[in-house]
């Protein structure tokens, strides 16, 4: 068994999220120890580096290294931001962390603030999960009341204020600089980098941004030690990771596994492919990650390096499972519509290109494809990729490039025969409303 859950361990849904429950699980011990021992910030950052923790939001950047980028001797406010703007199709882990274990995020952020000398923090929470935002506000109130947040935390010299900022429906705010803009009360259009947030973040002040799950991992790293966390996973892929599995499986949901666990194990945990149908393809890291055909993913372990070697990305750990009833053109059409809809409109290739991609795929799906459309798709995607301010351009291009690469025949069939390779009645079975019996 490769599951040693940390973040999701000992939780009982809506019943165990409060401060007292978290404390009963050993919560805030890491923080208390740091305050009591006056642990030097450098030691904390060293521990983070030793843990091998890589950013859980998608890019997988080593967190300890990121923390070390914050300027030490900056006069005035330094900021900390938590990215809970989880809107990448397939990803739904941060919502569960925030509603079932909010204090682990708060504790992680307080420790991070201590390590980096931050004075203020914001948790940017995805617009569509208002109830989770409200609960997080309650958790913040609990922490403040207990002296775990605010002025003189645990009666020490260390002060840190943390607030929740609620989004209101823009995928792009998951991009860290768009998120900063949004916190400043602007539309979420990403900033050009450099300057990077570590030198010019919220209100132009040094800022570090980490994902919810990243912060949630921090207390466990500090209490159990970086090395122990590292050892849960593989070298360069330390710790546990929450995988959100959705689509054609019997038990969709969040599963916290050690990095390096075989994909087949996750699939088994999720109850296997629904209705005993055949696995067709898996997007292993959220909708922006390249799709992998069944035979490739079945041989993969779930960690940054292995998925990358297979030609995709572990990303946010959002695993979208598609079985043989799936029309890959239709699937891509929906994803391309999403990127078109969510483009911030700022830079030319993305603003103009995402709509173009969607329209080409739309016409292929609707039997109006043209002979040179696959070349056109590849070319337009290529012209977006790597030419935009932020990664949304790449995110829009990668699904197109990978779907056409692995399932080109299906696209060509659509163009040639004006219909789908997967018979409509089979598709209908796969798109039926399905709710797992356990829900």
């Amino acid at each position, binding site marked *: 068994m490769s599951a040693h859950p940390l973040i999701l361990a000992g939780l009982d849904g809506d019943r165990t999220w409060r401060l007292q429950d978290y404390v009963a699980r050993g919560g805030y011990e890491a923080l208390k120890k740091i305050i009591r021992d006056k642990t030097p910030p450098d030691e904390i950052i060293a521990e983070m580096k030793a843990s091998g923790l890589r950013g859980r939001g998608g890019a997988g950047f080593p967190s300890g290294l990121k923390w070390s980028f914050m300027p030490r001797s900056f006069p005035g406010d330094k900021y900390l931001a938590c990215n809970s703007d989880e809107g990448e199709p397939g990803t739904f882990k941060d919502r569960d962390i925030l509603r079932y274990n909010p204090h682990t995020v708060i504790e992680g952020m307080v420790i991070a603030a201590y390590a980096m000398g931050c004075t203020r923090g914001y948790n940017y929470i995805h617009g569509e999960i208002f109830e989770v935002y409200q609960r997080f506000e309650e958790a913040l109130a609990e922490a403040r009341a207990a002296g775990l947040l605010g002025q003189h935390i645990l009666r020490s010299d260390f002060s840190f204020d943390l607030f929740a900022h609620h989004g209101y429906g823009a995928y792009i705010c998951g991009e860290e600089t768009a998120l900063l803009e949004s916190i400043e009360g602007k539309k979420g259009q990403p900033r050009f980098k*450099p300057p990077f947030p570590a030198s010019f973040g919220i209100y132009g002040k040094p800022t570090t941004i980490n994902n919810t799950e990243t912060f949630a991992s921090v207390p466990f790293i500090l209490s159990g030690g970086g090395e122990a966390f590292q050892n849960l996973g593989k070298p360069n892929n330390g710790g546990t990771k929450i995988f959100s599995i959705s689509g054609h499986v019997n038990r969709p949901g969040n599963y916290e596994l050690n990095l390096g666990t075989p994909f087949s194990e996750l699939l088994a945990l999720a109850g296997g492919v629904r209705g005993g149908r055949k696995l067709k393809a898996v997007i292993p890291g959220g909708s922006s990650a390249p799709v992998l055909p069944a035979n490739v993913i079945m041989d993969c372990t779930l960690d940054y390096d292995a998925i990358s070697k297979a030609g995709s990305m572990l990303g946010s750990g959002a695993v979208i499972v598609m079985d043989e009833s799936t029309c890959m053109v239709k699937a891509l059409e929906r994803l391309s519509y999403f990127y078109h*809809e*969510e483009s911030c409109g700022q*830079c*030319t290739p993305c603003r*103009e290109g995402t709509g*173009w991609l969607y329209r080409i795929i739309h016409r292929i799906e609707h039997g109006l494809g043209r002979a040179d459309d696959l070349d056109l798709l590849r070319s337009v995607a290529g012209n977006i990729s790597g030419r935009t*301010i932020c990664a949304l351009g790449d995110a829009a291009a990668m699904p197109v490039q990978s779907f056409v690469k692995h399932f080109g025949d299906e696209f060509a069939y659509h163009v040639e025969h004006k219909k789908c390779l997967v018979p409509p009645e089979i598709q209908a079975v796969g798109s039926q409303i399905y709710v797992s019996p356990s829900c």
Partner: protein
Amino acid sequence: MLEIEIDGKAVQVPDGCTVMDAATVAGVHIPHFCYHKKLSIAASCRMCLVQVEKAPKPLPACATPVTGGMKVWTQSEAVVKAQRGVMEFLLINHPLDCPICDQGGECQLQDIAVGYGDVQSRYQEEKRVVFNKNFGPLVSSDASRCINCTRCVRFTTEIAGLMELGQANRSEHAEIMTFVERTIDSELSGNLIDLCPVGALTSKPFRFSARSWELSRLRSVSPHDALGTNLIVQTRHDKVKRVLPFENSAVNDCWLSDKDRFSYEALASDARLTQPLIRQGETWQEVGWQEALEFVATHLQGIARERGGDAIGALASPHSTVEELFLLQKLVRGLGSQNVDFRLRQSDFRADPVRAGAPWLGMAVADVDTLDRLLVIGSFLRKDAPLLAQRVRQAVRRNGLQVSAVGPNAEDWLLPVRERALVAPADMVDTLAGIAVALAAKRGEALAEALVEDVAARVGGEPSAAANAIAENLASGEKVALWLGNLAVQHARGAELQVWAQEIARLGGGSFGFIGEAANSVGGYLAGAVPGAQGADAQALIRTPRAAYVLLGAEPALDFADGAATEAALGAAALVVALGAFDAPSIRNVADVMLPITPFSETAGTFVNCEGRVQSFNAVVQPLGNARPGWKVLRVLGNLLEISGFSQETAEAVRDEALGDNISARLDNAVTRVAPARTVVTGLQRVADVPIHFADPLVRHAPSLQKSGDAAAPVARMAQPTLDALGLNSGDRVRVSSGAGQVELTAVVDDGVARGCVRVAAAHPATVALGPLVGELSVERV
């Protein structure tokens, strides 16, 4: 300095510059749309992508900082591929109908598409349609052409100071708009036309009237405010078709105010005078120049002979050229009179005998960028000097300049005012004295001896809190300046304001000077268009009417400190000779002869701007009809009158004679003591602004500007407590009365007006009856 390599060429560039800056240094052109040197960097059009050694992806030149040893390629295969890709995206939704687009021929998209576009489009879907907006009378919208570079949004926010435009929506639905279909009301709005790289924002007055390649480009100088904005006047078939900025980083940068840009429409106005006219009772007779000038010469000579030179007065607009002003004063002096003035809206001339030289800004315009403290006294800065205000705004944004203000008005200058003494006109002298006293205390210095006595008599108690705060602010500065604005110049005790500004500047270790009301507010002094010791100034010439007046480029009702009194004085004169470009009712009412002289576009001339910069220009078109350059008319008149010294062949010769060769030695704001005047205030005090689009005859005749928000009819603005004291509500119709007359206006609440004051605009037909710009008014509900 850093050394880098661009396209194999080594260049030295300053630290902190971008690849785009470096390319400019290297003489390499990188195509771009959203980048503009005066705006913040968006890096969004992606047209300037270049290849940088070791970078995995192409990088935008505009936003990529240079690092030592960097190698950049701007023409490599990868770069061209990236740029062609971006160009294709820009074009897929752009209407490809350049032949019917007003921007055609001067469109950056069109130009760059020639180099980077394809012959055939691969995009076969329907193009996006974006509905046009009504941005007002000046800027036209063709929204489907927009490429969302957001230069316009950044301009309104950063340069004009108020975000009037935004990019609403997202994705390909993003579009540029104002809030709720509002018009763009900035006095700098026309710059949007120059900034827009495509045909999405074009000039409403100009559009579709000519193609850019048909137009001649000629340099000129704006005849409006005291900055002396440099112009390119574009003409076709001997008509001025439009006006563009000529970039001059020391004066106007690359900007124009809307007044500078759109006043050219007045050049073709029906109100232009094109033939000399002589009054025949109630009618006017068109006559030839010979007859007209002989008539003038004969009558002027007659009056001089019969009643003496002192019976003649000359009043010239400060928008006249140096040449005109110089020859006018020479003419009048040749007739034995010292009565000449160009300071038509001024009412306090007590500084004349005690001033050291010609009043000016006291510093170079470009040095605004290096100031850290500025105190603006009695100014409607933003509307009176839009581009000077813009420069101040940039100095605040970029260099941390702190601006304070003293005056009865606190309208939004779209820049932060740190400390403000919002005081009635009658309290301004006391306020300045208070600042001086507080500053002296802070500096541990004594007040100038001459002022100690005044202070004892006047300030009495402690300086006000606002005066203290301003003194504190000035004391903390290293590079300090004080500017006296138009309201200070027109103030009933303007000379005392000057004295105290001088003292504050001395104590603060800074400079002081005048923003200047008009294009030749400095030039008029240098040209000698001011009365000599025995002469009468502009006010005296109205208070003590003369038998004959020569009027140059001014309208009696609208261009004087007291329009009503001016009309009365001139109306009673035996002879009024009016030289001007425009016909006007108040000229017709008083003149006996109207001589059509040409505006700036049809004559050679010179303006000396507020910093003492001499800027000469040539005619860009032939005179309209029988109008003639003013300097030539005056020269002929001088000859007819047989006055010596009127034999100049060229405008340059007149200028050289007028200005000599050491201008800077004659610029001096120093004054010695002016005895304090006591003012007893019993009623409401008038605060009179001269609205931006009414300040001179040219702009008053410009139709599109007269449709803009800045040309709105005058109202009576009062602070809420003032309204309350009068039992009035905002929106009430009120009768506003002065000793001279009364008018009916709408009362409007405006907490940017000092208590006990009514702000009523001058220079407008609707308020002429109120008489003087300064003084008391009463207000009652109609």
